[in-house]
């Protein structure tokens, strides 16, 4: 994926989907699960980077303590999919980290615990997948995350908002003010791609 120059980007004028590929950052401390999730995502035509910890996820996004927030990574991340139970930094802690306000986060867990699911969704997770992850789980998520573009609608990201029971997104307010280059370029917040299709 080519590195985009700063002047090409800006607010809502730039699409992830011109390349027709979503770049997904997968986070899981399990070697086996990383391999599987990577294949599942590639099978749904995503570009994938798989890392083994929350710390490495932050590093990849150029957002760990050692770097400034504008450490732009040329490969824009459009979605983070993370395991819940990881040593040192759980998926929930990763989600809470404010840096992910503009990138949707999906949580995976082998444990189907209602309170855990609720907590993650309340904290702004896009979705929660119970492991083992199936192709249909991944397809469902990629499909509905990109569906807004087909109709030319603007993507509203469920971040830091309480989901109401119906999961009705029209009640959510618009995305946060964009303040850094990297965040601008995670552009789901954008209108149609060229032909209204992905």
């Amino acid at each position: 994926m080519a590195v985009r120059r700063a002047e090409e980007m800006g607010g809502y004028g730039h699409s992830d989907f011109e390349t027709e590929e979503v770049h997904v950052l997968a986070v899981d401390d399990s070697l086996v699960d990383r391999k599987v999730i990577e294949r599942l995502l590639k099978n749904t035509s995503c570009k994938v980077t798989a890392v083994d910890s929350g710390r490495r996820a932050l590093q990849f996004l150029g957002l760990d303590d050692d770097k400034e927030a504008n450490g732009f990574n040329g490969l824009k991340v459009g979605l983070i999919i993370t395991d819940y139970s990881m040593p040192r930094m759980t998926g929930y802690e990763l989600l809470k980290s404010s840096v992910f306000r503009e990138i949707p986060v999906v949580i995976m867990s082998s444990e189907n615990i209602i309170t855990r699911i609720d907590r993650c969704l309340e904290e702004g997770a896009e979705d929660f997948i119970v492991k083992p992850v199936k192709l249909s789980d991944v397809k469902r998520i990629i499909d509905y995350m990109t569906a807004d573009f087909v109709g030319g609608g603007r993507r509203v990201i469920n971040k830091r908002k309480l989901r109401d029971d119906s999961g009705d997104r029209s009640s959510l307010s618009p995305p946060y003010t964009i303040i850094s280059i990297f965040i601008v370029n995670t552009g789901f917040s954008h209108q149609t791609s060229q032909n209204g299709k992905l």
Partner: protein
Amino acid sequence: MDRNPLRRQLQIMRKSFFDQGYLDEQFVQLEELQDEANPNFVEEVVTLYYRDSARLILSIEQALERKPFDFNKLDAHMHQFKGSSSSIGAKKVKAESTQFREYCKSRNREGCTRCFQQLKKEYATLRKKLEAYFQLARQAGPMETACRPK
């Protein structure tokens, strides 16, 4: 049924894994991710599983030798082992892992020790079967079309 006798044997072997409860639906998920571009995907994942499992089994063994048992640590290791077993569809191994975790929760030393022996047996059996399966698959050669039973 495939005309190739080796491939027929492979199909019979594979079916027995499901019929006898060694593997579950998740294994089929992995098979469906295998294609011409990734012709050995399932075996690659299973090989990673062996590597991961060896490490975890060793950690658990060492933890079971300590007195007193650190049940939280044992549970943590087994949580990982259960997870990867689940991801490849290792049904019996997963069931033993679940049982082990129950014993951890109830702080049952005897239960943990017994259960772990059983788990290692199931793991060894599965590994032997899968190794024979992939070896036969290599002998049988690539499939002309992906027409899997089940």
